[in-house]
């Protein structure tokens, strides 16, 4: 499998603080990678760089064969829209739109809203019957599944999840992980940022960060 993502000597500093230092990482297409580390280790910073929401201070980032490290904000937005599906710990759903409309928003800003396709995406995550409900009428697990459906709707190259089970109980955590397994089987590339060994254990590969340094790559055990 070809590399879908490559980070070469990536550094990120915020003022005097070095959040990431000399990160080198390659992710193959269809791979499930967990980026783990304690708070302040730099895993969210790394996710923001991979997700085109921040630019690295130095180094090279290649996504799907395109060097993105020096692109401007507008081009990064286009890359993010076309190639990345984002899943957040706090869900970030639009409170005044129904479940299906939340998915259609992602379609709308990508290309064109298609309600039927959005409903099918909801069915795939087991939320077909909740399509007309507002986010506040959904449980935490349902909201996260809705986020996953939204992240998948535009067929992204990479699914990037930041602590996807951080706000969920065990049952919902398992449900979300089941969905990730299905996606992985279907060939999706998944990068999960987490501090949870349990979540990390589902991945093919675990990358560990400590104080901005990559301290290990490849171990699967927590």
């Amino acid at each position, binding site marked *: 499998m070809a590399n879908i993502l490559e980070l070469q000597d990536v550094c990120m500093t915020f003022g005097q603080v070095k959040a990431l230092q000399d990160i080198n990482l390659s992710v193959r297409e269809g791979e499930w990678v967990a980026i783990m580390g304690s708070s302040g280790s730099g895993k969210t910073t790394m996710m923001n760089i991979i997700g085109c*929401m921040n630019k690295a201070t130095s180094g090279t980032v290649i996504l799907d064969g395109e060097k993105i490290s020096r692109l401007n904000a507008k081009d990064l937005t286009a890359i993010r829209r076309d190639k990345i599906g984002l899943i957040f710990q706090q869900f970030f759903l639009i409170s005044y739109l129904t479940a299906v409309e939340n998915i259609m928003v992602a379609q709308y*800003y990508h290309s064109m809203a298609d309600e039927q396709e959005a409903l099918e995406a909801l069915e795939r995550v087991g939320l077909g019957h909740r399509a007309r409900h507002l986010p506040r009428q959904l449980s935490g697990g349902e909201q996260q599944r809705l986020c996953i459906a939204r992240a998948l709707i535009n067929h992204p190259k990479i699914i990037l999840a930041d602590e996807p089970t951080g706000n969920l109980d065990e049952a919902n955590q398992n449900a979300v992980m089941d969905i990730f397994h299905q996606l992985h089987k279907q060939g999706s590339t998944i990068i999960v940022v987490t501090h949870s060994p349990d979540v990390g254990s589902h991945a093919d590969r675990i990358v560990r960060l400590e104080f901005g340094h990559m301290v290990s790559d490849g171990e699967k055990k927590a």
Partner: protein
Amino acid sequence: MFFRMIFGAVTRQKQKLLIMACTMALGISLATAMLNVMLDVGDKVNQELKTYGANIMVEPRGASILSDLYGMTEGSGVNDKFLREEELPRIKTIFWAFNILDFTPYLDIKVSVKGVSEQVTMLGTWFSKHLDLPTGESVDVGIKNLKSWWDIKNSWMEDEDEHGVMVGATFAAKNKLKEGDSLEITATDANGGVQKLDVTIRAVYYAGDNEDDGILAPLATVQRIAGLEGKVRRVEVSALTTPENDLAKRAAQNPHSLSHDEWEIWYCTAYVSAIAYQIDEVLTDSRAKPVLQVAASEGSILEKTQLLMLLLTILSLACSALAISNLVTANVMERSTEIGLLKALGASDGEISLVVLTEMLFATIVGGIIGYVCGLGLAQVIGHTVFDAAVDLKLLVIPIIALLVFVVTLGGSLPAIHMLLRLKPTEVLHGN
């Protein structure tokens, strides 16, 4: 999808948008009321000022010249000049007819009253005369409305009352007269004949002026005993006028010194001099003179009142704008997460601005319409409370209010939206 987002925001965020619409309604109602009152306050104050007397005096041309040149108010050459009573309705047919609020003629003669040693001035006038105008309209004019501040014991008498008079408070007090008493009046008519008249006092009036030492009677009665049927000595006119400016002052000195265009402007503006000029045109051998002291005071009061109202209106508009823009800004700032998410999903700055501004404008336009309607009601409350009259609704207020709604909404939203658009999604989604 765009409209679904707007619809969703409007129908499912009712409370937020309602607060915004209410604030807008509150601000706009205040602005609407103040603007309507401000634009109408000139007429209202003018009308109010007109209740304190006439501002144009019409006299026979010859008598006016003697009065102007030599200060003569009595004697040969003054008292033998008259205006024609039958021409007086023409005053209400001039170009500025609708600005003529009231007028009344006077004919004064000296009479002797039995039991009173000195001669007394008997003043004939219209009390509330019904006139059928050549234009087909009809009006009621006379001293009753023109001197509305006079204090009358009992009530004003009627023009048709041939055997009644009203007496001034000073005259009544000096001679211990009261309503219901009879008077035996003797006068010398224009031919030198002696005329006698028995009348009953219908009311005692207090004018606070020289008139308090005289007798007031219907014009026809005085004309009959003076042998001066159809004649009047002078006419007082109360007109709604525009404050004088340089053009009006030049025209007052000599209208023929104006250029054609200046003359057109002056003639077609309700300057007191223009109205006086037009009265001259319709009455034979007359000289209509503005009572300049009254006109100038009125103009000054009017200008100051309008300035005060303008300042109050600007102040209220500024307060409304500030309150609304603060709320709009707060609302936009609250949506930082949503805006960050839309950016993360790939929305462009323009697309995000369009969604947020459309929602804001929807709420504020609804609030603006409600505020405008409430403002009209508020204007009427102010009108009835302060001026005891309805405030005319000015169409000019509508575009001003519409502009205000847009400016305030955009002014309140754009800086906040601009600031939020500069934020990176990570800053609002992760706090980094």
